[in-house]
């Protein structure tokens, strides 16, 4: 590990990084726009400049170079001596901040980025409080560059992160720089739009308010948002994301740095795939059907009802006539609790993995890349936890069936009762499955939306969206990633984890972590949870 000296302080740093990275990791606050850890280095914003000791041209030792050097470009090397705490460095920072604001509209009060804007933050920390500009500002236009994204080029600082993203990560080359000098603008090519499956990342990459997400535009001031760590349930990649919410409403999803899984990125499918959670048609309270009468039982009575009805079925038909259809949308903890409960009542209950939604093609980026060159993958399996639920089924043992065989057998009358978990944002109940369910005497349906199963189920329990739950998903590669609860379940509903926890005989509040610890006693694999690392300070 090389040791370098920054501002007179010795810093031990990782191999192969740059001085800027080393300084940021060691807690220095070094302003930068064009540098982003996931993109190539262009050293063009000239804000992270530092002083560096070089061999004296006169010979005999080292001296401070009269030139400033971009710290984003200098690799760390044992014995390197640099400084940011110098008048020359600070003067440059002040001047760059002044330059960047010369033609900036200063429209922070109506800018979505306000509050998480590096122009604001750096101006406050490194800039002068006044401008000496007395001429008219050059005004670059606002542009609609794609179905989901706007570009207010008057706010742009030309860091070119977005351009590099479309070249280096997506390989779609949608963006470019046009014009020259201070009239430079980011733009799409004539007749083309920014419309690639990862395009939302350019909004995250934009350090200022130039690239804007139409979906989030003017919806919330960012300082009202609560940020919660989550995992995207959109496909089996398992991107680490943040759910930004306020007063029980989700406003946006942002990717979280997660090396080896999604790095700094996420796809639009996941980014905008949370809307169903606020759909007015969701099931928000338990429903019970008794002899053609439909009612809403109090939550307290649910365990009793389930227990009594299941026992009645077992008494009448035997303990092997009960099945549970687990959903790949469930968290590992939820699946484990449900299995534990059902097997405690019906020791020979059959475990079934519900349908695994497969859609489209495997999409690898940059477009056309293979092997090590792949920087991001969108998977065909549009659920987060097939592997986690499969693992629980396999490790629990006992009778299991595939979904197709279960449908056939249930249609033929092999089962009398089933607990069916959905939780898919899209309609999922096939005709065959509805027919199979129709043969059952007692059905508990746990789902988000009304469908052919909830229409006939004896007991319907509301399921929650991922941001309303907590637990962990096992992604395509077997990585178990925990996610937290961002918002409360809809009024009247209860978190899936909570009521399953209670059914399984526990009291108090459900906690994903606590349940995982119990699971790990039985299935060692679940002790190996992999959390995404915290985002390094000052890295946006």
């Amino acid at each position, binding site marked *: 590990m090389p040791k370098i000296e920054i501002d007179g302080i010795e810093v031990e740093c990782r191999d192969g990084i740059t001085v800027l990275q080393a300084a940021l990791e060691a807690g220095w606050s070094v302003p930068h726009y064009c540098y982003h850890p996931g993109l190539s*280095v*262009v*050293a*063009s*914003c*000239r*804000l992270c*400049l530092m002083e560096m000791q070089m061999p004296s041209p006169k010979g005999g030792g080292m001296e401070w*170079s*009269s*030139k*400033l*050097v*971009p710290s984003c*470009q200098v690799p760390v090397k044992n014995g390197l001596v640099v400084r940011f705490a110098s008048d020359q460095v600070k*003067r*440059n920072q002040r*001047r*760059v901040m002044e*330059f*960047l*604001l*010369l*033609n900036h509209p*200063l429209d922070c009060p109506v800018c979505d980025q306000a509050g998480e804007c590096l122009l604001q933050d750096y*101006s406050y920390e490194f800039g002068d*409080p*006044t*401008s*000496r*500009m*007395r*001429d*008219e500002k*050059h005004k670059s236009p606002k542009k609609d560059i794609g179905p989901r994204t706007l570009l207010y080029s008057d706010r742009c*600082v*030309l860091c070119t992160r977005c351009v590099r993203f479309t070249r280096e990560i997506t390989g779609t080359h949608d963006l*470019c*720089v046009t*014009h*020259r*000098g*201070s*009239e*430079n603008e980011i733009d799409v090519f004539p007749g083309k739009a920014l419309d690639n499956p990862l395009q939302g990342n350019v909004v995250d990459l934009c350090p200022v308010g130039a690239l804007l997400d139409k979906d989030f535009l003017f919806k919330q001031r960012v300082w009202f948002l609560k940020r919660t760590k989550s995992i995207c349930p959109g496909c089996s990649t398992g991107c680490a994301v943040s759910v930004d919410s306020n007063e029980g409403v989700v406003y946006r999803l942002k990717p979280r740095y997660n090396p080896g899984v999604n790095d700094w990125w996420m796809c639009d499918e996941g980014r905008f795939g949370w809307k169903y959670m606020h759909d007015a048609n969701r099931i928000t309270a338990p429903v019970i059907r008794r002899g053609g009468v439909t009612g809403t039982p109090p939550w307290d009575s649910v365990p009793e009802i389930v227990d009594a009805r299941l026992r009645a079925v077992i008494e009448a038909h035997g303990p092997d006539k009960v099945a549970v259809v687990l959903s790949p949308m469930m968290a590992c903890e939820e699946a484990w609790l449900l299995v534990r409960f059902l097997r405690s009542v019906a020791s020979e209950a059959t475990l079934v993995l519900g349908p695994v939604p497969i859609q489209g093609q495997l999409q690898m980026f940059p477009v056309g890349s293979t092997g090590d060159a792949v920087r991001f993958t969108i998977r065909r399996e549009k659920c987060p936890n097939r592997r986690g639920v499969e693992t629980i089924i396999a490790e629990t043992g006992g009778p299991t069936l595939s979904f197709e065989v279960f449908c056939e057998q249930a249609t033929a009358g092999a089962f009398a009762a089933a607990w069916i978990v959905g939780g898919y944002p899209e309609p999922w109940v096939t005709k065959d499955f509805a027919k199979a369910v129709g043969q059952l005497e007692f059905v508990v349906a746990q789902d988000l939306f009304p469908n052919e199963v909830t229409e006939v189920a004896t007991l319907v329990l509301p399921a929650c969206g991922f941001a309303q739950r907590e637990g962990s998903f096992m992604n395509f590669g077997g990585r178990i990633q925990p996610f937290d609860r961002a918002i409360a379940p809809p009024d009247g509903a209860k978190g899936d984890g909570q009521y399953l926890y209670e059914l399984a005989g526990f009291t108090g509040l459900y906690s994903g972590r606590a349940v995982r610890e119990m699971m790990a006693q039985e299935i060692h694999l679940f002790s190996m949870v992999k959390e995404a690392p915290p985002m390094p300070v000052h890295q946006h």
Partner: protein
Amino acid sequence: MGDYEPVLLRNVGVEGAATIGVYKKRGGYRALAKALKMTPDEVVEEVKAAALRGRGGAGFPAGVKWGFLPKDRDVTYLCVNGDESEPPTFSNRVLMENDPHQLIEGTIISAYATQSSIAYVYLRVEFHELFHILQRAIDEAYAAGYLGKNILGSGYDLECYIHRGAGAYICGEETGLIESIEGKRGWPRNKPPFPAVEGLFHKPTVVNNVETLCNVPHIIERGAGWFTGIGPPGSSGPKLFCVCGPVNRPGCYEGPMTITVRDLIYGDAYGQGMIGDRKVKAVLPGGISMGILTGDELDMKMDFADPAEYGLLGLGTAAAVVVSEDTDIRVVLRSIAQFFAHESCGQCTQCREGTSWMYKIARRIAAGEGGPGDLEVMYETAGNLGMMPGLSICGLSDGAAFPIRTLIEKFRGELEQHVREAPDEIEQRSPSTVRS
């Protein structure tokens, strides 16, 4: 200077000099034959011994540049910089229009010395006529066996292509030029790596100016000793000078680097004095980007060393714009600032914003609306950009800073007169924007 025998311009004015027949009749392609009998290293050594310094502006020794090429390289490219975009500079144009084979011969010899397999001539797009002249000459050279496979039976192959720019000053910067040839926006690259190590298409590349390469055949033919015999030490060899503005005979002239700015304006072999005997107010002697001289500084020698004594960045392209006494210095300032604001590629913050800010201020001063503090802001801004203090990727912003800084330093009195005369209300009309 009347006894100076032109070398580079020897074919200018000769009927049919742009054709291979006339060029050969006048001694052309002899140096190539000689060079191909030498080893590439011997050619490099000869050019090194001649201390041929780059004529494009920076004055870096060409042989040393060639010596930076890694020993174990597989492919090497030679780029001929014919983007000639510096204001008042037209010496490359004169060379290529009148004597294209001289450039081609120099290119082939230099490509041989550097073991380049392809030479790209990067040509300023505005050279429409010239493009056809040069292309015709290249076709002739191919037909005569000077280009292509197994040149003159030496076993050495070289392909030569013209790549036309699209009208950007920045593409004359060597890495901007390389990006442009690669089909990209001409944004200069961060260095290191230098082009000699990683240049065009990520391969070792040499970029040389047209005039630099035109010197090479003469060095090979007449020897390094002959070359260093011309001009002062450190500034050896024949040099082209341009002079324009209100002089009696504007044009491109050849001479040794012993001449002064005064010679260039008043010399019989050069500008032959000012129109109507007007007084010289100022001269920008190295293209506009090297800085400005006052009418009292005409003793500056047009060599690689002396300009620094006058606060200038360097010799530059050795093309002088002469400003006469009846020109308002504010207009000069505005024109300079306008050029760089227009030509800044916009990659680095300081240059992108600084050049346009300076232009806005200069425009206002020229319009009689200069206010207190304007000159200070402009002068300071000119000090806050440039590659030399490490603030930008390429030297364009140094070229923007030097003329403006030296102009404000040397003509402050005249500028202040106009600024001071500006009404006080300007300050009140547009107060500094306060942000918090």
